[in-house]
């Protein structure tokens, strides 16, 4: 993880100086989708980069140790070995960025990853995920417990009631959404957040990370997110320390695209290991 954000004094003046022109941002997002496309080997390379930034996620009510165990093993081997070999990337230790689960499943995840011999962090959602409408005391207790169980990263849900009434907080990493809403990570929203991150960096020198989550299902979208990060924040942000893609089914689509790139045909269901 990147160094902790030591923070600054809360400067409400900065917030009031922010102006965002929504149609211009939407237009910019559309243009990026069209202009920055990659093909062939370059596309495969970007897809592998995207894989390393994925927070492989399972946040369902019916999560049990068995599916978490499966997820963690997939996290260690996200892409089929022979495909990686064909791309000459089998020695690069390609794994996902992290595994993201509910606090109650953190122990299972930690154990599974240990069994798989993988040292990627376990991220836990906390603080009354997904609504955030729980008392501050239980939120803090949840976070403490998750850390005790072995989570190295916590996705905290901010209290939206505080935001909507103008009471702000600070953080190391900002995430677009819980992924459980109707509208989650759209490109215009992401662009605005990334511009805020860059402004903060220019003002304080601290790099805050960015994680779009929810609704990212296709490899093409993943590449567009990477392009946006490169365009708005720069190449230094294109690393798991500063950028994560919160996704569950995305990995499947990426693997399919890589399969197609290597073999020239489309993968059948049994060709790729289930997460």
């Amino acid at each position, binding site marked *: 993880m990147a160094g902790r954000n030591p923070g600054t004094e809360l400067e409400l003046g900065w917030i009031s100086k922010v102006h965002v022109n929504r*149609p*211009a941002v939407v*237009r910019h997002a559309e243009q990026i989708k069209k202009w920055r496309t990659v093909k062939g080997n370059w596309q495969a390379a970007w897809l592998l980069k995207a894989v390393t930034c994925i927070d492989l996620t399972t946040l369902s009510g019916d999560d049990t140790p068995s599916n978490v165990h499966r997820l963690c093993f997939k996290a260690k081997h996200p892409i089929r070995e022979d495909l990686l070999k064909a791309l000459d990337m089998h020695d690069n230790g390609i794994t996902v960025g992290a595994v993201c689960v509910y606090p109650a499943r953190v122990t299972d995840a930690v154990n599974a990853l240990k069994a798989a011999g993988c040292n990627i962090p376990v991220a836990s959602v906390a603080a009354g995920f997904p609504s955030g409408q729980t008392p501050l005391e239980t939120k803090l207790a949840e976070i403490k417990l998750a850390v005790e169980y072995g989570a190295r990263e916590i996705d905290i849900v901010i209290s939206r009631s505080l935001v909507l009434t103008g009471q702000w907080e600070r953080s190391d990493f900002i995430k677009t959404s819980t992924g459980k809403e109707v509208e989650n990570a759209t490109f215009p929203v992401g662009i605005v957040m990334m511009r805020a991150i860059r402004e903060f960096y220019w003002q304080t020198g601290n790099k805050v990370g960015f994680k779009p989550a929810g609704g990212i299902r296709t490899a093409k979208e993943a590449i567009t997110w990477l392009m946006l990060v490169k365009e708005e924040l720069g190449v230094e942000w294109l690393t798991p320390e500063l950028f994560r893609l919160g996704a569950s089914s995305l990995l499947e689509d990426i693997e399919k695209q890589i399969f197609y790139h290597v073999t020239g045909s489309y993968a059948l269901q049994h060709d790729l290991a289930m997460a």
Partner: protein
Amino acid sequence: MAGPCSLAALLWKLGPLLAMGEWGSPGLRGWDLAFGGARLSGWGNPGPRGTQASCAGNAALVLPPAEAPLVPLLLAELSGEGGVLPPGLLNVVTGTPCLRRALRAHTRIAAVTFLGARRRCRTWPGAPRAGDHSWEGPGGGRVVVIVLDSADLDSAAAAIAGSTGTPPALFPWGGCVVLVQEGVVAPLERRLRARLGGLRVGDPLDLGTDVGPLPPTAAPPKGVVQAACKEGAEVFQPPVTLPPGGRFYPPTLITGVAPTSRCLRELVPGPVLVLLPVRSPGEAVTVASGLPHVAAGAIWAQDVTLALDTADRLPLGLVWLNALNLLDPRGGCARGDGDGTSLEALREYGHPPWEPPLGLGNPPETLLDPELSLELVLGGPAVAPNSADVAAALEAARRVALGWSRLPASARARVLRGAAAALGGSGAAGPPPKGDDDDGDGDGRLRGALLRWAARVELLGGVVQEVPGGRALVTRRPLGVVGVAWSGPHPLRRALELLPPALALGNGLVVVAPPSGVGPALRLQQALVAAGLPGGALAVLPGGAGGDGATLARHHPDGLWLCGGGTDPDWASALSVTHVWVPGGVLGGPGQEPPPDAEWELELRCTRPRCLWVPGSGP
């Protein structure tokens, strides 16, 4: 010929293509486009269907500039292949400049359009005729961007950097001048530098590159940039790798210059941005108005009232609001001077039914009665107006015209109605002099015109075009000060009736009248001033000898109406004026009513379009 509508569609598609071909050639030399041959029908009803059906019956003969003949040749070749256009419809002839003289003199050429920088017109022989026009068009200018302190700086920087890299067909010179309010200069500059660093220079056909090569035969901007450095300006060029060979120039940001610097006085080809701080929106408008070669503008501000107000004050035909370089997919706002709807663009290539057919061996005639002798028509000995008087009158009119045009339409209407009443009351002044009019009711018709236009101006509106991503509001603005050369060997009767529309729509007028016309014109002037017209808005000068049009043109009015027939000013002086018009039968023939579309035509002739792009909720 094939069905008019399909031809219209074809030619309409060609139009923007022809315009876009200008991207390849520098704005210094233009194309010469001539339309000759058969004209199908006359002016349709000014609705889209009618215009479509009528205007497309032209054949075109294109003379490309000597340095860049390939694009038109390719276009002609492509149109011929597969029978896209019937043979003979689009012809491209390359050759030496003396071809132009031959083209101009040819009897079967009905009208000539000149595309390109106006100063090239000086080499043209002969005078413009009714139906000829020039189109400054692409290559005519650059974009000025005003960023106020409530703007979304990131989006503005992204849009400006994007436009620097990929100039659209409109502004092949690329680059733009950015006027920034002082409070946000540093943040905007920082963002611009970051974005310029991310631009990729390379083959324009490759979608992944942003910046293409310089236009052919344009001098690389090295000289201008060096001059800026010598003046102490700061020049930022990100370390991009330029492709080998070809004429590439890295994106450049110049700050710390003043309006006297070369980079602001001249059009600089290539991806060069100039940043200039201003203190307030008012100052931004003043500086923008003082820059030469500006074709369009953009305003970035989240404060909507301020943005709209600033946009209104800019004297440009095309203004974007919180956007840059958005193009109407139909090519509606395709001209640098923002010629409104596609309807009006098509108008340029047809001619109304009340005009006699152009060219085809007939010299253009104004509608006059050949029975009357010249003396009787003029009504007295001809005089040449004093050049100093003309200059003074134009100057006074300019000072007053702005205020006059800013008045609400109802105020102007009130003045016109008052003048009509005053004229009615002056029937006791005696019968109008002979030879002035057909049926002796000049005053009555003038009163009618005043009242009609008073009513019409109160209902004046515009057009709203919905386009993807927002809407374009196309309104009409007065031309400014119009010089009316009423004198000449064949002065147009009833030319006084052209004055009420011009005044109603907010113009100032300087009329050079023949001896017979001075009296009625002065009467009209007195009536208007008595009703409240600011002094100087309508000036009447005695004239009557030939060459009045040239005299007026030399002082650069915003519009020039030649109502005298015969001797027209030559191309050079006429084309220094943007809107030259030879009114003919728009007022109706002797003893006839004006044709039905005349009022619309007059409205268009007295105003120029102004297009304001307002972004909407987006796709």
